């Protein structure tokens, strides 16, 4: 069953059909929310809110874009609203160093190398937060590997070419910051 058919069924009030759509896009939505908020617990709440909002506004979905793109745009908007709220800023300030780190699992790497990777992850997380949002968001979204450039451009509301340039510029700035910290850049 394709998305359009599930959307049509959900429009008629079939919550099971909408549940199928939730299962299909939960990872994409959750990662977009995480990229925007930077907090796993908050991203789960944003993802739920995005799906609920999408269900309520299914009548406004005209099918001009894919359902996934439309859903991600809703998610991004909700996540940005949450990111700008004072309460979220306070929470982020209090727990900036407490966010759990997902260790990169690379088979064949030694324990020492994985420790180094963990340290690098913590450093990169801190440095990404220091980037301006116009660079941070493209870097984070492209790092998820979930979205095409067109989908990211639709989410952020910028042309695709601009988005590519910002993602590259963000990575360049990150590397420069890492180099300033003593990392040898190649």
């Amino acid at each position: 069953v394709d998305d359009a058919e599930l959307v049509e069924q959900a429009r008629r009030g079939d919550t099971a059909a909408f549940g199928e759509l939730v299962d299909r896009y939960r990872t994409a939505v959750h990662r977009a929310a995480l990229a925007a908020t930077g907090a796993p617990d908050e991203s789960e709440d944003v993802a739920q809110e995005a799906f609920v909002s999408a269900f309520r506004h299914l009548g406004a979905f005209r099918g001009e874009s894919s359902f996934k793109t439309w859903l991600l745009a809703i998610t991004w908007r909700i996540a940005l609203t949450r990111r700008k709220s004072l309460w979220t800023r306070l929470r982020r300030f209090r727990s900036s160093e407490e966010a759990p780190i997902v260790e990169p699992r690379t088979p064949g790497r030694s324990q020492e190398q994985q420790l180094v990777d963990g340290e690098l992850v913590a450093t990169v997380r801190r440095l990404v937060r220091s980037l301006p949002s116009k660079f941070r968001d493209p870097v984070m979204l492209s790092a998820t590997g979930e979205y095409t450039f067109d989908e990211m451009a639709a989410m952020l509301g910028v042309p695709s070419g601009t988005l590519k340039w910002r993602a590259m510029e963000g990575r360049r700035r990150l590397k420069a910051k890492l180099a300033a910290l003593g990392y040898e850049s190649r």
Partner: protein
Amino acid sequence: MSARPVIDDRALDRALAAITSAEAPADLRDGVLRRLQEQDESERAAAGAWSPAAVPWLGRRVGIAAAAASLALALFAWWDWRTPSLVEPQRVATPRVIRPASGPQERVPPPTLASAAPASDTHQRLKKARWFPGQEEELDPLPLLDPIRTREVAPTEMRVTPLEIEAVDVGEALDVQPLEGP
């Protein structure tokens, strides 16, 4: 570990993926559907705690009562339509007394002020005058029932069987209520 690690694109990709590639919770679907249901319930409760849908037994009783009331109203309307009204006065002009010419001759009483005046004059007066209590005799609101005019408009009847038309009090005959004064 004295030397700092090398950072290249692969290492940066791995680090960024570690930050952004969190798995979505498996029960996200349940959470979404639960939230939708909660919203529906709260909206329904906010829309009206007295709605029949919110209280099924009350809705059933209200429905039965409304149906019974509608039926009773329809029956009453039908009965009222079929039964002639006993309360409302019959607004029918009192028939004038008409006697055949062969009977004892009676003179037509002297005409009232209204009937004595020419028809056109009466019309003019009625147009201008207002009918206040106490003026019934002076102002005749219905000149068509004027005895003189009646005699004029039915001359053939009078020729066949001469009739004597008695002047009647038009106001009383028609049960016309006088207007309130200013």
